[in-house]
């Protein structure tokens, strides 16, 4: 294990961290995250409806869903019918506060079939729920186990961090 300090910006290149506050009690947010009947009503971006939602709902179980669009422009000006299948395995479920699962697109989607790990934690304060969402991009089990957890940096574009590194930090602060 290395002993060098790593710029948070370099670490941020491989994971996603989103925090949201929902005006709803935690139990409800948990239900909506884990119950397939609810999951299909919000999963996916605006242009998609989630069809075919399955969720074993327990650690070690699997989940799967399909994002369907009747007409989606993938960038070339042609409207296409799309069915994007995604799924994974549930790693941890501690109701109503912590959910950890793997997320992977089917190869047929062409979106990159590498597996990512999603961690969702829910905290309630005064009737509102704070959701911390974290998605880590790893490829192999070995890489996953070697990951140092706890980066809490926001995501920046490469150009910004390169610029900032050049004016600010050296690898171990001496340069």
């Amino acid at each position: 294990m290395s002993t060098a300090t790593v710029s948070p910006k370099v670490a941020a290149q491989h994971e996603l961290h989103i925090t949201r506050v929902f005006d709803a009690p935690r139990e409800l947010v948990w239900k909506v995250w884990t119950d397939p009947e609810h999951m299909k009503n919000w999963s996916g971006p605006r242009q998609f409806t989630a069809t075919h939602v399955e969720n074993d709902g327990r650690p070690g179980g699997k989940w799967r869903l399909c994002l369907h669009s009747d007409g989606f422009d993938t960038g070339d000006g042609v409207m296409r019918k799309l069915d994007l299948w995604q799924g994974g395995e549930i790693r941890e479920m501690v109701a109503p506060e912590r959910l950890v699962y793997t997320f992977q697109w089917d190869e047929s989607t062409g979106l990159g079939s590498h597996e990512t790990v999603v961690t969702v934690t829910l905290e309630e304060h005064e009737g509102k729920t704070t959701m911390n969402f974290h998605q880590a991009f790893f490829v192999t089990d070995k890489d996953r186990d070697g990951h140092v957890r706890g980066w809490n940096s926001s995501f920046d574009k490469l150009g910004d961090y390169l610029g900032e590194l050049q004016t600010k930090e050296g690898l171990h602060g001496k340069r």
Partner: protein
Amino acid sequence: MDDQISSTFAALADPTRRAILARLALGETSVTELAAPFEMSMPAVSRHLKVLEKAGLIARGREAQWRPCKLKAEPLKQAADWLDEYRRFWEESFDRLDAYLQTIQAKEAKEKKRGRKTN
């Protein structure tokens, strides 16, 4: 495209390799200099450099005595763009989640009211 993204993320998944990339962002340098901050053997550092080179994230000079390592920014930029897409994907999903939670609660409140009236 898919393979390159996967290789990039595999390379970035290791903190030592991220530290190496951070140093190279400041300019090209030798393997010895790159290895300096780590309590790690030269062969171990070389292994990391091989992964980075295979992933297309660094270029290494060919002269025997001085093989400078240089950062190649394009794959990292692609990974950054890729993560941008994911971020947008999730933010939109959470917008829908937010609206859905409001809908459920409004419905529950209405039904509760109706229940009270018929009692």
